[in-house]
């Protein structure tokens, strides 16, 4: 199997995508990005404050060789706002990647499937590499595929909860039926969960809180890097079948003879 992940014609060397939010400071974030080996980092749009210039993110991120940026549309509450955010982000950094993320409820941050679909439809038609953060819904995944998204990114669990692959069964169906890469986005806490996601056939995982909110983000970033690599190697090597244990009291196969 090919080790590289191709999204919308762009080749990525790592199957780990890292979010840049929730870090204590920019220096730690940059160190974690480097330690993770990721080739794609998500960033968010914010108003520039001339009185209080925040740490410049783009400079140090773009200085990392081969790194690509994937702006998200967080803050957008509907498709119209998300599309606007996508165009602003493309003007800002020139990246064709856009993580469509529309969560109207600021508490649970769960994605709005209807607005997400509409935004993806518009952006995919205008040469964006569209990466929707979405509910783990197999039907929505196919509908998004039909409008031309580059991947689907179902949530493993709600953002920041660390509940892991709570949607595992749905994601298995999405993987089985999808023509585009499936990337688990949100909910992961432990590197073992990232490995498990890749082992079951996910093309990549996107993590942020799991690294940023750990005690040692740089060490955790490295742990995720190794977990994703292990998961991929396992997927390529083919897991051994599980074995059934016979418990039937009245044999089901006696009619077949030996």
């Amino acid at each position, binding site marked *: 199997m090919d080790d590289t992940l191709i999204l919308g014609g762009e080749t990525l060397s790592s199957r780990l995508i890292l979010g840049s*939010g929730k870090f204590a400071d920019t220096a730690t974030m940059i160190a974690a990005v480097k330690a993770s080996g990721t080739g794609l980092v998500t960033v968010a749009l914010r*108003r*520039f404050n001339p009185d209080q*210039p925040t740490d410049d993110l783009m400079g140090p991120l773009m200085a990392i060789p081969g790194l690509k940026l994937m702006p998200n549309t967080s803050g957008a509450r509907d498709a119209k706002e998300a599309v606007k955010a996508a165009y602003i982000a493309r003007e800002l950094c020139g990246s064709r990647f856009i993580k469509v993320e529309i969560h109207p409820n600021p508490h649970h941050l769960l994605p709005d499937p209807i607005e997400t679909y509409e935004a993806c439809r518009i952006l995919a038609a205008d040469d964006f590499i569209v990466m929707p953060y979405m509910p783990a819904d197999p039907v929505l995944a196919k509908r998004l595929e039909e409008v031309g998204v580059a991947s689907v990114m179902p949530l493993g669990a709600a953002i920041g909860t660390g509940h892991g692959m709570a949607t595992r069964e749905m994601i298995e169906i999405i993987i089985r039926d999808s023509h585009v890469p499936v990337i688990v986005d949100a909910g992961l806490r432990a590197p073992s969960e990232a490995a498990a996601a890749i082992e079951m056939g996910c093309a990549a995982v996107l993590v942020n809180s799991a690294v940023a909110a750990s005690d040692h983000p740089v060490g955790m970033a490295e742990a995720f890097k190794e977990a994703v690599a292990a998961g991929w190697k396992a997927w390529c090597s083919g897991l051994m079948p599980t074995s059934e244990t016979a418990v039937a009291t009245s044999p089901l196969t006696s009619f077949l003879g030996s």
Partner: protein
Amino acid sequence: MAVHISLNDKNHDLPDGATVARLLAGFSPQPKGIAVVVNGGIVPKAAYETTKLTDGDQVEVLTFAGGG
């Protein structure tokens, strides 16, 4: 004479005939990765010098922050 604009929802004064480039030059330190939206329309970088700002313009200057 001065031009009164709204910058990220705050009042901001500029000299008459000011352009987007002039507005950005007033920031210190100089922002690197930014995008400018005037009255809802994105201003391409190439048009910063030629885009004049007038009274009442709603200007948004955006940059990247950490996000997942």
